[in-house]
């Protein structure tokens, strides 16, 4: 069950945060870990390890995030060794930032949580800066004594409890996914104490998280232009992946992102965690006999399809925001319909963000990604329609004052009454 460890005389102190110390015992893994410092784009089209600005790539995102720090600074993520540099340098962090943000960035975190208890979470971010010294490293995933994979984040243990899963019973293959699920998941700060929490109460799907957020009336911010109470999705990599064909076949994150590589005559797991497009042979060809070119085309072809649909949704969202924004400046706009338009905006942008913030541009589960985006488009266009009707009917003084109450159910029929159109004049 557990991974065999190469024999060694040196020992690693329990929880040792410094990867260099581990590196003395496991030099090959350490060397490949350090390669994450290289920042390559390589074969990748939508990912890669260059911290390019998402906002520059798609300026419409500035509008979608209006009123939220993501509209100011939001970059492509890169290797684990950069985690500290990135979280401290981002302009999203400010004086009001709390320590919950450290949770997924360093092996120094678990001991601190152990020491401080639930007071950890809302402690100001800056206050712990001196005690957090290493970016994500060995101790985040391994037990120092046995080297076995280990869940080090209470946040995942909490979530497993919610789902009724006993972490001790996870198989080795499952652990090869679950160590990643410590961090590559959607989360929110539990309102009472800001504890990092995964919204898995009803299940792992987009709809399940939404259901929980509705239930607890959660919002991340109020949209500056539309005024809608918004949800921010963040990297639901594990959740989206779970709905796909690879998960259904028991393929683990590590199978693709940490493939076995030759080191002399034996193999090690690559610790240069990166886009599998830059290790197609090792990552995919053990299972897929097709050529590298075919595999690359499949990935990028799939991503292109998802991207195209995502862009349609961005356009629809942008239109919806404009419509709500303008309508809201009209004092005659029907309040009830404006609320409805804002709810629709919230729901559609949640769907967009779920796929946009996920990191594989849909590859982890293409069908689910496209389904979610399709729903988003439906809702965004309905938001736009509802906002228009809120003003249109008010301004027009039509016969039927409840016009447009149920967009999506044939509003203009309601507006005119069946066959009653001539009466309007």
């Amino acid at each position, binding site marked *: 069950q557990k991974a065999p460890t190469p024999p060694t005389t040196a020992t690693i102190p329990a929880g040792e945060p410094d990867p260099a110390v581990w590196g003395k015992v496991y030099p090959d893994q350490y060397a490949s870990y350090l390669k994450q410092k290289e920042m390559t784009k390589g074969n990748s089209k939508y990912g890669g390890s260059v911290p390019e600005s998402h906002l520059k790539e798609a300026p419409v995102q500035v509008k979608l995030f209006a009123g939220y720090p993501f509209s100011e600074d939001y970059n492509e993520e890169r290797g684990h060794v950069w985690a500290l540099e990135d979280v401290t340098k981002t302009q999203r962090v400010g004086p009001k930032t709390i320590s919950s943000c450290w949770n997924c960035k360093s092996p120094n975190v678990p001991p601190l949580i152990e020491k401080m208890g639930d007071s950890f979470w809302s402690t100001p971010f800056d206050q712990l800066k001196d005690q957090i010294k290493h970016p994500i490293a060995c101790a985040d995933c391994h037990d120092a004594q046995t080297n076995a994979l280990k869940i080090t984040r209470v946040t995942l243990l909490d979530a497993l409890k919610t789902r009724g899963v006993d972490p001790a019973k996870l198989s080795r*293959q499952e652990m090869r996914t679950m160590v990643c699920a410590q961090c590559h998941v959607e989360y929110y700060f539990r309102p009472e104490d800001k504890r990092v929490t995964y919204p898995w109460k009803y299940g*792992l799907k987009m709809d399940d998280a939404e259901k929980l957020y509705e239930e607890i009336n959660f919002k991340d911010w109020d949209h500056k232009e539309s005024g809608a109470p918004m949800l921010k999705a963040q990297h639901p990599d594990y959740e989206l*992946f*779970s709905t796909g064909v690879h*998960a259904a076949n028991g393929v683990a994150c590590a*199978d693709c992102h940490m493939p*076995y590589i*030759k080191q002399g005559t034996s193999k090690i797991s690559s610790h240069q965690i990166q886009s599998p497009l830059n290790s197609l042979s090792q990552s995919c*060809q*053990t299972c897929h006999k097709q050529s590298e070119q075919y595999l690359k085309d499949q990935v990028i072809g799939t991503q292109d399809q998802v991207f195209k649909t995502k862009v349609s949704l961005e356009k629809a969202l942008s239109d919806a925001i404009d419509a709500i924004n303008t309508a809201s400046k009209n004092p005659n706009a029907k309040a009830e319909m404006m609320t409805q338009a804002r709810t629709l905006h919230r729901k559609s942008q949640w769907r967009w963000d779920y796929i946009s913030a996920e990191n594989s541009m849909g590859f982890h589960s293409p069908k689910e990604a496209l389904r979610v985006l399709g729903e988003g488009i439906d809702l965004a266009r309905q938001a736009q329609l509802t906002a228009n009707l809120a003003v249109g009917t008010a301004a027009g003084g039509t016969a039927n004052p409840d016009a447009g109450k149920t967009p999506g159910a044939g509003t203009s029929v309601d507006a005119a009454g069946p066959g009653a159109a001539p009466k309007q004049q």
Partner: protein
Amino acid sequence: MKPLSPRLKKWLLLAVPVILALAVFVRYEFEHTSTNQYCGYTCHIMRPAYESSFHNVHREEMNVNCRDCHLPEENLAETLVYKAYSGARDYYKNTFDPPDVLRTTDWSRDIIQSNCIRCHQTVVEHINISGGKLCFECHRGIPHGQWYQPFSSEKIYTPIR
């Protein structure tokens, strides 16, 4: 017939046993280097293929061996040339340039295909078999019957639903 010169006789006396010994040795080596044990165990790199073919009727019940599929059986010349070539290549690669994944060459696929047909002639006698998919493009798991990396062969589903 012209009598053999003593010189030649002497040479023959020496050469015949040597040639015979050599032939026996080559023959032995040929056999030795065509055993499952040899193919599967000599080189670390071959272990996954070796192990993955264990639990297949071909190995388990029918005693079909690596060579039955991977060596040409129809003509001796091809067999010898192929064996020498692929053996040399494997040794070279194994020493200097071991690949991360093994992939069959066109030549080796042709050989496998003709071996499938050799044994399963009757099964396929009523269908068309040229210019279509290769046998093992449908029978994808035969005999290295697994989809997962050998290292992660436990079947799992994402633990949380």
